[in-house]
């Protein structure tokens, strides 16, 4: 039973539940304590020891159901009784199929599984390989030979025997394939997930499939959590600080120099105050989507954000994020439903002018202004003077451009003209780029 629990834990790991050694020891002790008789009690005890969050518990339930589902060879409801009267000495596998001894078949399968080491399966492309390995270890070659021989005999009885054996062989194949599939589901998830995550982090956001979005959200959430963690640690160093000897002495002169009231050197870290101005025209839409997702996934205590979106005109979008959950809000901005925005041709000049007119007060010395867009202005007036004004008022202006550097300034791109007024201008079209941009803010 110990081996079973071991396998269960490793498959749980591949489901993405992080389990430490001490936790698996707990699981073993818990299982030893409650025994294996009552499935529900066993499940609860293991779950208490292994799954530590709601998400993990969900995964645990899924894995538990899957793992403890396959425990017997599925009954094949064949009513034909295969005849064993044959001149040929038949292979062991053929004999097992003829006599329909499930226990023997199961044992043989398990032995073959052990031999083939299916729990090392990594990719779905290996399913065929492992199926073949198991079958050949069970002696499928002998079975095939027997079927061939029955056919060659060419008597009505032997033909029937061959047909039935062929059917039994197909069923066996199905069963083994099903088994391998389950093993894959149990053990191969983690590497595949890891690979997908690495791929998605560096994939061009504009080229992503819709089907990948869910996975992206998970990654974004993870990134946000990591950034939050790092930042909260920085905040802490602000609270501690070192002893400020001079201040302490001065303060305690009144107490004959006895240090009653101790003063600390404090490193003050401002909460970043961010204004995001996003172009939501189609060319940059996906990047904006994930950028806003990341910004708003960060803890509100850590970053203060006001967001503006523009296409032909500019509007403030902060309220949308107050009213709806982040994911929904981002989707809303994309389509512009219920918002007073014209989705015509992009006009950076007008957007900057309107921003200056209505919201310039919001920009203070502490504000970082982030502009997200490809700077393709449809040959309109770029209004660089306005951008320069914004820069003078703000702490810094960061321009994130989804186009790669080589394309800046080509065609109707005004990026080259805007460049002198940005403190930082970066190419930004993958999740990793986004993460780096946010990191530099904090």
């Amino acid at each position, binding site marked *: 039973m110990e081996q079973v629990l071991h396998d269960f834990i490793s498959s749980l790991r591949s489901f993405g539940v992080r389990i430490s050694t001490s*936790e698996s020891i*707990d699981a073993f002790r818990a299982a030893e*304590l*409650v025994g294996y008789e009552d499935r529900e*009690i066993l499940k*609860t*005890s293991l779950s*208490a020891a292994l799954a*530590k969050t709601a998400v993990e518990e969900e995964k645990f339930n899924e894995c538990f159901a899957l793992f403890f589902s396959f425990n017997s060879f599925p009954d094949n409801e064949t009513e034909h009784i295969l005849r064993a009267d044959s001149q040929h000495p038949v292979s062991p596998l053929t004999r097992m199929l003829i006599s329909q001894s499930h226990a023997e078949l199961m044992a043989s399968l398990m032995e073959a599984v052990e031999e083939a080491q299916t729990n090392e399966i990594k990719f779905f492309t290996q399913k065929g390989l492992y199926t073949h390995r198991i079958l050949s270890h069970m002696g499928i070659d002998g079975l095939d030979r027997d079927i061939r021989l029955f056919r060659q005999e060419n008597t009505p009885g032997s033909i029937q025997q061959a047909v039935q054996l062929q059917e039994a062989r197909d069923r066996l194949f199905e069963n083994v394939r099903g088994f391998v599939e389950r093993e894959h589901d149990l053990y191969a998830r983690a590497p595949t997930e890891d690979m997908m995550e690495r791929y998605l982090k560096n994939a061009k956001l504009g080229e992503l499939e819709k089907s990948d979005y869910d996975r992206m959200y998970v990654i974004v959430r993870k990134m946000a959590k990591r950034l939050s963690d790092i930042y909260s640690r920085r905040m802490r160093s602000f609270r501690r600080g070192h002893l400020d000897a001079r201040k302490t002495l001065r303060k305690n002169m009144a107490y004959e120099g006895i240090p009653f009231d101790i003063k600390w050197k404090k490193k003050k870290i401002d909460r970043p105050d961010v204004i995001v101005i996003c172009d939501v025209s189609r060319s940059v839409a996906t990047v904006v989507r994930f950028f806003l997702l990341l910004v708003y996934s960060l803890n509100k205590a850590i970053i203060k954000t006001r967001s503006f979106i523009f296409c032909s005109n500019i509007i403030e979008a902060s309220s949308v994020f107050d009213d709806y959950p982040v994911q929904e809000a981002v989707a809303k901005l994309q389509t512009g439903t219920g918002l007073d925005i014209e989705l015509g041709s992009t006009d950076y000049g007008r957007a900057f002018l309107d921003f200056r007119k209505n919201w310039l007060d919001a920009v203070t010395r502490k504000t970082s202004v982030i502009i997200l867009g490809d700077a393709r202005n449809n040959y309109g007036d770029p209004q660089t003077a306005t951008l320069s004004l914004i820069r003078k008022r703000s702490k810094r202006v960061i321009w994130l451009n989804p186009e790669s550097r080589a394309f800046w300034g080509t065609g109707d791109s005004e990026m080259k003209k805007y460049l002198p007024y940005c403190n930082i201008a970066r190419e930004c079209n993958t999740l990793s780029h986004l993460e780096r941009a946010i990191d530099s803010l904090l």
Partner: protein
Amino acid sequence: MKVLNDQVFSSVESIQQGFKDVEYICSKHIATTLYVAYNLEKPVLVEGPAGVGKTDLAQRAAAVLHLPLIRLQCYEGLDESKAIYEWKYGKQLLYTQILKDKLKDIIKGTNSLAESIKALHKYDDIFFSYEFLEPRPLLMALQQSGGAVLLIDEVDKADEEFEAFLLEALSDFQVSIPEIGTIQAECKPFVFLTSNNTKELSDALKRRCLHLFIPFPNAKMEREIIQIRVPEVSERLRRQLVAFIQQVRKLDIKKMPSISETIDWARVLLVLNAEKLDVETVKETLHVFLKFQEDIGVVKEHLPEMTSNAVKEGGE
């Protein structure tokens, strides 16, 4: 953990019964987790929405085991001097003043500064001994010779540093005091930690605990709870009010009514001599279990149909 009422924790069923005797209905899920935690001597991290009886669970466990309950309420800024131990500074000062003359005696025969310090060194740690130690909840729980139930409430409200202090206490049941050394638990306490999930706890802390998630109870369990807590309420009214509360929890509201609020409502209805639910009574007592004006508004919108549903479900 050697305690008087140990046999209650000898099986899952007896735990359920034992808790029922102290008026706490615990599901098989909860009972199993407690059983494992108690027998493996592991802390339990209890999570769940507000008002499902997380804190109560620890209190009842103390009652079942006939052990003292030591409670540590966490909040932002909680530090070791409030949670683990502190020196009795006042007592130390007072004693040094009183013993001034004594000190003179000690260094009387010495000729040089070095010698007098040497003489003093013999009594070195006298001011940093157990007599001057003020134990706070964590240390107190470890010092109980008969064992104790330690409740660390709302651990998610505490800072990260405090979580780090907890690690030592929870995994080895010991506390390190630099001046004295390490203090081991005489008898391992049964530890409950509760969290409302306002902040993600560190993995290290979670790893040391068994995890228990308590959701809102289903109708059957909630009825049982009402029956045991407010037994005077008639069977019909009990069914109706639980059915109503269960419907309210399905609505999109700010704060779900908790179990304690269901109990309160049952008591209020009892005082009002209500025989069964009707729209008027419900409307007038909504504020017992709804604490936001907006929530009351939402529920009022659906009031007639919800009431009739509840009445139907509860049986005429």
